[in-house]
Each structure stands twice: as structure tokens, then as C-alpha cells.
């Protein structure tokens, strides 16, 4: 019998115990890999940003609008390649449960200069630019809501007390977050009388090179520092970070919970391994009398523990991957998460954690058992 066969047979000889232990490790790793993926997902949102893209908003807060005339002054700053205004509309489509996308009033002519990654067929782009009430949506949203070109989409305003009757003119591909957005003309919103006329929520800016970034940021904010509406300009990444920061100390919470979970499975497996070793003290003595070295015996026992926890851990992580990719998470979390995919890296990390837990939990009982002399071991009543 091979070494690994021997380990596996021994590990699973008390089938019930092995399965229960594997399952508790699997459940713990399921939670753990989900939590880590959750945090990674938030980070990924930040990584998807373009370092050459800046955003200018009102210095006081995002809810304060900026005058639309600022655009020309920002455009004239050296290093600025393109400027496009975006105003968050925040309306409701059918009801709150269906509104799993972000809505922006945009300037159709410059939007694509700042967002080159929005991939839209040229004829659709043209149709969108021509139609004052036109709207373009991300591919995934179009699929999900069953929208086709030419469909009417009505958005009921919440912040803006107006209802927009939009016509679908284009379906674009982009990053997962981008595909959760829809864009319509700000000129259309501006037609309705109200305080918002002549204002925009934010300006998005593309600069020519990475070394222009600090200078352009400073130049824009200096331009408006002493006006009625002072601005704050930052990189896209810093802007997204602001939203994450608003959620509170999420990482701290996840880290705290994760460490408790790891400690809990350590306790559970240590307990099982101690039981399993105690039952086999006589056998261990037999092994030693057959000429197995102490180190070999410890090695055998540790491999056994690790085999059980590793199997459990992989079941848990793979299960998490399977479950989270087969659920429509965007609908479930009202658009907060577009996807939650447990990556292979996290799965291997989970396996490593599980194996380490197996090692740590077996090392003490294994060492104790191996230290007994053959005579003591054989005399043992277990």
C-alpha cells in the first residue's frame, strides 16, 4: 500500500467522523471564501478605473450641482483632452426592485471621448446622438430586462420631479460596472423647467498623460476656488474609494469575522484529530515496533489531518464558486454587486488555509502520541 493510500484509508476509517469534520471545514471555508471575494469585489471596482480619468465635483458634496459653463474653462486647461458632463438622475424604472442600474444624463457628443471603453456599434452611436430622447444601455441590463432597440423606457424622477420617456437607441459593451449604467441626453432633462437647468452633477475629464494628473487637478480647483461653486477634482480611483469609505470599516469587520472563523475551524479539527489519535495509540505503538520512526509517525498523522481539512476546504471554496456564479446577484443585491465570482486564486488560498489548519490541529496530538514508548503505547487503554 502506498503512503498516500495508507493516509487516506486511516483518515476515513471512521467515515462518519471524517465526513462531519470535512463538512464543518467546508462550511467554514464557504463563508470565508465568500467574505474574501466580497472584499476583493469592492477592490476590483477600484482597479477597473482609468488613471487618466479625473472627476470634478462641487467641493461641498456630490449633491451640490455645478454650473454647466464650467466646462469651457476646464477644457482650456493644458493637458485636458476631453471633458464630458454626467448628472446622476436616480429615477425609478417600474419600481425599486427593477431599478438595478445607474442612470446618467450625459453629453452624447463628448461621452465617448472620455469613455473610450464604451463599445457601441457606429450606426447605434449615430442614432443615439441624433435622437434627443434616445438612451443607450449596457448589454447585461438589456438582456436582463429584455430590452430591444426602439423600446420605450420610462424613468420616474425622484430627485428631479419629471418623468423621462426614453427610446432605446443603442446597446453597448463595457466593464461589468459600466454595463450596469444607462446614458441619456442631458439636453432632454434640461428642457424641463426647474432649478437644475444650466447645472450638471459632475464633469469627467480625460488628460493626456499620467504626469499631467496632479497639475490638472490643481489647475481646475484653483480656477474655481473663489467662486460660488468651488470644485474638488480627483482621480476616478479616489472618487470610487470615497464611496467605499462611506460604507464604513467594511474591511475591518470582514477581517474580524474571518479570523474568528479560522480559529473556530482550528478548534473543531483539533478536537477531532485529538480524538482520532487517542483511539489509535496502540496502533501507533505497533507502527513504531515495526520500525517506523517517530518522525514518520508524526508525518503520517499530520498528512491525515491535512487530507481531511484540505478536502473539506476545497469542497467549501468550490461550492462557493458554484453557488455564487449560478445566482443572479445583481437582482438580489439591487445592483450593488454585479457579480461575485470566487476566483481560482481565492480557492487555492482557501485550500492553503484549510491545509494549514489541518497541520496545526494535528501537530500536538500527533507529537504526544509519537512520544510514547512502544511499551506504554501497547499498554494504553483507549
Amino acid at each position, binding site marked *: 500500500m502506498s503512503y498516500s493510500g495508507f493516509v487516506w484509508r486511516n483518515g476515513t476509517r471512521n467515515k462518519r467522523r471524517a465526513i462531519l469534520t470535512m463538512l464543518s471545514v467546508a462550511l467554514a471555508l464557504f*463563508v470565508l471564501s465568500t467574505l474574501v471575494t466580497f472584499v476583493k469585489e469592492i477592490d476590483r471596482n477600484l482597479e477597473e478605473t482609468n488613471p487618466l480619468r479625473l472627476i470634478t465635483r462641487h467641493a461641498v458634496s456630490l449633491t451640490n450641482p455645478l454650473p454647466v459653463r464650467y466646462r469651457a474653462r476646464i477644457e482650456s486647461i493644458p493637458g485636458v483632452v476631453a471633458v464630458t458632463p454626467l448628472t446622476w438622475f436616480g429615477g425609478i424604472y417600474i419600481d425599486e426592485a427593477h431599478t438595478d442600474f445607474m442612470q446618467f444624463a450625459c453629453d452624447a457628443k463628448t461621452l465617448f471621448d472620455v469613455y473610450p471603453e464604451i463599445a457601441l456599434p457606429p450606426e447605434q452611436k449615430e442614432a443615439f446622438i441624433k435622437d434627443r430622447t434616445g438612451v443607450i444601455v449596457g448589454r447585461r441590463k438589456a438582456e436582463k430586462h429584455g430590452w430591444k432597440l426602439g423600446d420605450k423606457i420610462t424613468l420616474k424622477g425622484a430627485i428631479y420631479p419629471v418623468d423621462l420617456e426614453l427610446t432605446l437607441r443603442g446597446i453597448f459593451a463595457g466593464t461589468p460596472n459600466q454595463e450596469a449604467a444607462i446614458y441619456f441626453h442631458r439636453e432632454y432633462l434640461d428642457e424641463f423647467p426647474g432649478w437644475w437647468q444650466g447645472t450638471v452633477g459632475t464633469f469627467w475629464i480625460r488628460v493626456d498623460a499620467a504626469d499631467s494628473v496632479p497639475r490638472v487637478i490643481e489647475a481646475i480647483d484653483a480656477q474655481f476656488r473663489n467662486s460660488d461653486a468651488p470644485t474638488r477634482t480627483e482621480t476616478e480611483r479616489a472618487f470610487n474609494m470615497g464611496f467605499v469609505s462611506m460604507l464604513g470599516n467594511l474591511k475591518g469587520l470582514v477581517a474580524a469575522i474571518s479570523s474568528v472563523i479560522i480559529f473556530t475551524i482550528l478548534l473543531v479539527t*483539533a478536537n477531532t484529530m485529538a480524538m482520532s489519535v487517542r483511539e489509535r495509540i496502540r496502533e501507533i505503538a505497533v507502527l513504531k515496533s515495526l520500525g517506523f520512526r517517530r518522525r514518520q509517525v508524526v508525518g503520517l498523522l499530520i498528512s491525515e489531518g491535512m487530507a481531511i481539512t484540505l478536502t473539506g476546504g476545497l469542497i467549501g471554496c468550490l461550492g462557493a464558486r458554484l453557488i455564487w456564479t449560478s445566482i443572479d446577484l445583481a437582482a438580489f443585491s439591487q445592483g450593488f454587486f454585479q457579480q461575485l465570482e470566487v476566483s481560482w486564486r481565492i480557492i487555492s488560498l482557501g485550500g492553503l488555509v484549510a491545509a494549514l489548519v489541518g497541520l496545526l490541529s494535528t501537530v500536538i496530538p500527533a507529537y504526544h502520541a509519537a512520544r510514547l514508548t512502544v511499551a506504554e503505547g501497547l499498554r494504553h487503554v483507549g
Partner: protein
Amino acid sequence: MAIPLKYNFRSLFVRRVSTAMTVLSIALVVAVFVGVMALATGLEMALVTTGDPLNVLVRRRGSDSELSSFISREAFQAMRFLPGVQMNADGAPIASGEIVVVINLPKRGEQKGSNVTIRGVSPVGLALRPQLHIVEGRLFQPGLREVIVSRRISERFEHTSLGDRLRFGKGEWKVVGIFDAGNTAFDSEIWTDVNQLASDYHRESFSSVLLRATDEAAVKEIINRIENDRRYNLLAQPEVEYYEEQTKAAGPIKLLGMFIAIVMGIGACFAAMNTMYAAVTYRTREIATLRVLGFKRGSILLSFLTESLLLALIGGLIGCVLVLPIHGITTGTANWQTFSEIAFAFRITPELLLWGMSFAALMGLFGGIFPARQAARQSPAAALREG
């Protein structure tokens, strides 16, 4: 006849290392559950305890919070003199037109900031929230650029200590007082004079109007009158209800707590099961002896179930004790409905502890039932022969 409880206690003590590990793993699962739920409870309580049952909050129909609402001064004047609105000692209606804006402030010790609500109120507005009191400094003076800051916001954000200067609107505002609003949503706000705020923001209109009704019947009456007035298109609702609706902000946290608790709870069940199966195996001969002495199968079953329950309840108790120190710790998260920070404290209520204990008991029951059944089914003769 039942087997004495002492037998279970002693048995647990004999295998003390194994018992301790199982107890501790149950304790940790209970602690995580109670901890996450304390976070959700704290957030909910900050919102649920806000508002007086006689107060009516009016905002624009279609707006989901005060932030996106506006009410003309004309509509406000009309509302003040609705029948059913309470009068104060001076014979003036108790009605407050308020302005709500949001500013972005850096968090203490962090570069990044979060949004904080600024509420412009009149003296009537202060009278409508008697739970709010100044703990340091003094109240702002109407007509001056002065603000008062809640203690929780002051602890968490830069530029909000007594004597600091805040920049928003058209310039600087001085922090002249720190207040405590009795664990309500106002504990996440900065307050100032409504007229000063209106002129800084060029606001002709109010964000919302808060009215005090004379009695419960008048609350309904006022709401009906406002909703049926076609001129203004406003939405009136009891203040309590408005804040209750925002408790859905706690939904995701609760979901997280439940998810972790249920999955980890099942895991802990398996751990308890392992321990109990081992206990049954070790005590095969003991069980047989008990049977020979005349204890019935039912008594054996009950005894092992009790033992497992005992194990879990001790775990639950330790878990509850472990998590207690987080009670009262202040934290904050985004309330997306008001687009601003809501500051609150972890809250461990007796009810929550009871939930934790019930959860532990459930783990004990499920973990114990199968091993106990196995113990009860053993044939005494075979078991005695075996050893």
C-alpha cells in the same frame, strides 16, 4: 426514571479538553452571530427611536428622502394654520420648515471622507425635538454663521470639534456646541439656523416641514388634508414612519449576519455531533451498565440529549459574554436613502442575547439527537461483552 444531571456534568468534565474545544467553537459562532446582529440592531434602533408619534413630516411627493424634497414657503404658510396643528405657549403654531443639505467631511484619521447631513432649523424645530440637548458649548445664534454638531459626528469627523471652523455654503461656520440627541437619527447630523443656511444656498424653499398635531386623531386629519390638497403635491406621514422606512439600511448587515450564522451554525452542529458520537463510543459499557441497572432507553436518550444541550448552552453563554464588550462602540455607515453617514452604536439587547442562546440550544439539539439515539439503541448485552 431520569438519569441525574450530575452524571452529565461529570461526564463533560472527564473529557474536559474535548469539551472545552467544542464549547469554545460554539461560543465563537454565537459571538459572531450576536456581534453582527448587534451592528444591525444599533443601526435600526438609531432610526426606530427617532420621531414623536404626534409629529407629521411633510415632503414632496415622489422624493424618497428629505434631501431630494422641496416645499415652497407659500405651502408652508398654508400648512401652519391647518386645523389640528398644536399651538405653543405664545399662540404660534408648532411647525418647522427645515432645510437639509449634505456636505462631505474627512473622517478622523483617514484621508477619505463621508457625507454628513446639515439641517437648518428654527427655534420651533428645536422645541419639536426635546430629546436633543447641548452637552458642550452653547446653541447657535440665529443670524450668525454658527453650527452645533452631534457628539457622534464630532467623534468621527475632522473640523467638527468645539471651536473648529467648517467650510460649506458661502464660507466658514463656527462650531459652537456639541449635542446629544438621545440615540436618534439626529445624532448623525449638524444643525444650524435655517435662514442662514437658506441664504448661503440660495434656497427659496424648504426641504421638509415638521408639524406637531394636538392628538392622534389630528395626525390623521392633517395627513388627509395635506395629501388631498392638489395645489402642492405633497406627501405627509408620521415622522416615526419616515424613519422606520429607512431601517432597510440595516437589511444587508442582517443578511450578512444570518448568512454567517446559519452556515457556521451548521458547521458547529457537526462539531458538536462529532464530540457527542465520541462520547457515546467511549461510554458504550457505561451505557450498557445503566441499562442493566434498569434505566429505560428513553432515559438514556434524554440524558445524552441533555448533555449535548448543556455543552451548547455553556458555549452560548461564553459566546454572549465574549461579545458583550462591543456594546456601545460607535461606528457609522452610509444611509443611501439620505446619501449621508448614519452614526450609531453596537447594541446588544436582552432579546438579542436570548436569540444567541436559542441559536446555541438549536446547535446542541441537532448535534446531539443522532448520537443520543445511537446510545439509546445499543444492546446492553453486546456492549458489555465487547470491551
